[in-house]
C-alpha cells in the first residue's frame, strides 16, 4: 500500500513530542508535524503525554517507569504509528517498554504492539513512508552527529543523511568519529560532569576540525550538550535538530544561539 496515495485514508500518526522538545525547543515538534503532513499523514498530538520515562528508567526507578510507560501506552496505542523526533525516546518505547513489562503479561502484549509501530522520525519517513526527498533549501556546510540510541538501538544512520542530501544547497561533510557518544547520557552529564565534559570536548574538537556552518543531530539532549559546549568554547558553529532543516523551519534561532 502506498501510504501517501490519495484514495487510501491518511495514515494516522501520533507525535510523541518528547519532554525536552516540549520545554526547550517547540520548533522541532512543529517541524516534525510539517514533515509528516507533507508525506501525507494525519498528525495527532495526544494531550496526556509528558515524558517516556527514561530518566526514571536509567536511574533504576522501575516503579515510576512502569506507571509512566502505562500512561504512554494507553494514550498512544490507538494510532497507526507513533513517531518521535528522538532516537532515544523512540528507543525507550520500542526497545525498553517490552523489556520493562516482561513479567506483566497483559501489559507486555500492549507494549509489544506499541513497540512494533513506534519510530524515530527520519527512520519513519525513509523506511515506512518511503519518502525519497524533502522540499527544503538550505545553503550551508553541515555535519551530522549520530546519537547513540538512534544509531545502536534503532539503526538510524543512513536515513537522516539520505534526506539531508535532498536538501537544496546543503553540503554534508562527515566529521571524525561521528558515531561516538557526545557524553550526554541524561543525568550522567550532571552526575559525572567532569567525565562528560572530557567526552564532549573530544566531540567538539572533531566538530570544529570539520569546520561546518551547522551541526545537526536527531536528539535534543545531545544537541543541547554539544551546543552548550561549543558556545562555552566561543564557537560560531550553529546547532539545530535535523528535522528543522529538513522541514525548512530555520527562522527560529539556533540552539543556544542569538542568530
Amino acid at each position: 500500500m502506498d501510504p501517501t496515495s490519495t484514495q487510501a485514508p491518511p495514515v494516522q500518526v501520533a507525535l510523541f513530542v518528547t519532554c525536552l522538545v516540549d520545554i526547550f525547543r517547540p520548533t522541532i515538534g512543529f517541524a516534525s508535524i510539517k514533515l509528516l503532513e507533507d508525506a501525507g499523514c494525519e498528525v495527532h498530538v495526544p494531550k496526556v503525554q509528558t515524558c517516556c520515562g527514561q530518566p526514571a528508567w536509567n536511574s533504576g526507578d522501575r516503579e515510576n517507569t512502569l506507571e509512566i510507560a502505562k500512561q504512554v501506552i494507553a494514550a498512544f496505542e490507538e494510532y497507526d504509528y507513533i513517531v518521535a523526533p528522538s532516537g532515544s525516546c523512540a528507543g525507550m518505547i520500542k526497545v525498553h517498554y517490552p523489556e520493562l513489562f516482561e513479567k506483566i503479561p497483559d501489559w507486555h502484549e500492549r507494549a509489544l504492539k506499541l513497540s512494533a509501530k513506534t519510530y524515530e522520525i527520519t527512520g519513519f519517513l525513509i523506511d515506512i513512508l518511503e519518502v525519497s526527498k524533502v522540499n527544503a533549501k538550505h545553503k550551508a556546510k553541515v555535519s551530522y552527529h549520530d546519537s547513540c540510541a538512534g544509531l545502536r538501538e534503532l539503526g538510524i544512520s543512513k536515513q537522516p543523511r539520505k534526506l539531508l542530501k535532498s536538501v537544496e544547497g546543503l553540503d554534508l561533510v562527515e566529521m571524525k568519529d561521528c558515531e561516538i557518544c557526545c557524553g550526554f547520557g541524561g543525568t550522567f552529564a550532571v552526575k559525572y560532569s567532569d567525565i562528560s565534559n572530557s567526552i564532549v570536548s573530544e566531540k567538539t574538537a572533531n566538530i570544529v576540525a570539520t569546520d561546518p556552518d551547522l551541526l545537526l543531530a536527531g536528539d535534543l539532549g545531545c544537541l543541547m550538550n554539544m551546543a552548550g559546549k561549543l558556545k562555552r568554547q566561543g564557537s560560531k558553529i550553529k546547532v539545530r535538530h535535523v528535522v528543522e532543516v529538513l522541514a525548512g523551519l530555520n527562522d527560529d534561532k539556533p540552539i543556544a544561539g542569538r542568530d
Partner: protein
Amino acid sequence: MEINSPQFKLNAKTALGDKQLQGALGHVRENFTGKRAKARAQLPQFDDLRQNARAIKDHVLEHLDVYLELYEQKVLESGGMVHWARDAQEARGIVLDICRKTNAKTVTKGKSMISEEIGLNEFLQDNDIEPIETDLGEYIIQLRGENPSHIIAPAVHLNMDQVREEFRKAHTHLPDNRPLNEPQSLLSEARGILREKFLAADIGITGANFLVAETGTSVIVTNEGNGDLTQTLPRVHVVLASIEKIVPTLEDMAQITRVLARSATGQEITVYTTLSTGPRRKLDVDGPEEYHVILLDNGRSKMLGNEFSQMLRCIRCGACLNHCPVYQAIGGHAYGWVYPGPMGAVLTPNLIGIDKAGHLPNASTFCGRCEAVCPMLIPLPKMMRSWREKEFERHLSPYSQRRGIALWAWMAKRPKIYRFVTSIAARCLSVIGGANKQINRLPMAGGWTAHRALPAPHGATFMALYNRQKGRR
C-alpha cells in the same frame, strides 16, 4: 587488592588532569578500536562466529556442573591435581600450600586476572615467596608497584618514557648509558632479565583463557611467549582459573578463539596459543613434574542463577574497555579495583558488593558501544541498569537524585500539573537565558553549567503553542 571504587569520582578527576595518562589513552582510542574494526571487516562471517561463541558459552553455563566434573576427571586422568576454591582466601591458601610442599622460593607468573582478583602477589611476598611477573606489561607495573589498568594491556596507561625511566631505575647492573629508545630494546632488556628468573623459578603460575572439558587441557593465548616458559620450565605448573572458563571441546575452544584475538588486538590469532594437559609424561622432552589447577568460584556460582549470568560468557577480550568513551577518558585505575570499563561495571559489584562498587554501573552514558562490539554479545548496558535498580531499591543512590526523580515522576504522571509547571519553567528559563539564549549559571544545575552553557528555551512550551495555534505554527 585494595578497593578504591567508592572514590571513583575523585579518581576520575585525577585521571582527567593527568597529562601523561591522557596521552597514553589516546593510543587506546585510536589503535585498539581501529585494529578491531579492520579485523572485523576482513571476516564477513564475524557476526555468525559471535552467535556461535555465545551459544557455546550459554550451553556450558547451563550445564556447568557437568562440564566441571568432566574436566576434573580428565585432569586427574592426565596426572594433574584439581583444587576447588570457594573464595580468594581459599585460593591463596591453596597456592601457598603448594609452594610450601614444593619448597618454593620464587614463582614466575604469566598474565592472570584471577591472580589480581585474589591479590596473590602481595600475599606471596608477605609469605617470603618472590612472585615475578613475566608478561612485559605486568613486569613493568610490578616494578612500579601498580595494578593493571586494562585487562589485556596492563601497562597501557604508561608511555615509553615512563617505562624507560623505570628500567633504568630497576636494572642498575646494566650500563647507565645504554640506548633504550626503541620498544624492541626495552623488550630485549626485560627478556634478558627474565630469562634467568625463568630458569631459577620453582613454580610457574599461569591463568587460563579456556579449560577444555573433554581433554582436561588448560589454554593460554599470548603474544610474548612468556607464558610457555612460565609453565614448562619450573618443576611445578599451577593454573589459576575461574570456573566459567570451561568449554566442552577443543573445537569449541578453537571457535571462540576466532573472535577473541580479533576483538582484543585485531589479530586473526595471537602469536601463541598454548595447550597444556597434565604434568610431563615419560616420553615428553619438557614440562613440569607437577600440574595443579585451582578452580575459583568467588561469587560466580551465585551469578549463574541471577540476572547477571550472561556476564559469565565474558572471555576478557577488552573490546568493551577499548570502545567505552568513559574508559577512554579516565583509564582503568579510576574504577578502583581489578576489572575496569563496562565489563568491570557489571562484574565488580558482583564480586565486591554494590555498596562499594556503586559508582561503576552509574558512570555510563548507555551509549551501547560496548554491547555492539562484545564478541560474546553480552548486554552490558542492560545489566548496568539492573545494578542501578538494585541501588535504587536499597536506597543506595544519592538522596538528592532520588528526590529529584520522585518529584519529576510525580508530575510526569499528572499531565495537567506537568503542563502548568513546565510552562512556568520554560518561561523562567527563557527569561534567564536572555538575548543570548543560554544560561551559564543556574542553581542545582552546576554540574551542567560548570562545563557548558545550558541552551535556554524560547518561551512557551510546544504543548502551549500547539493548543493555542491549533497545530499551526
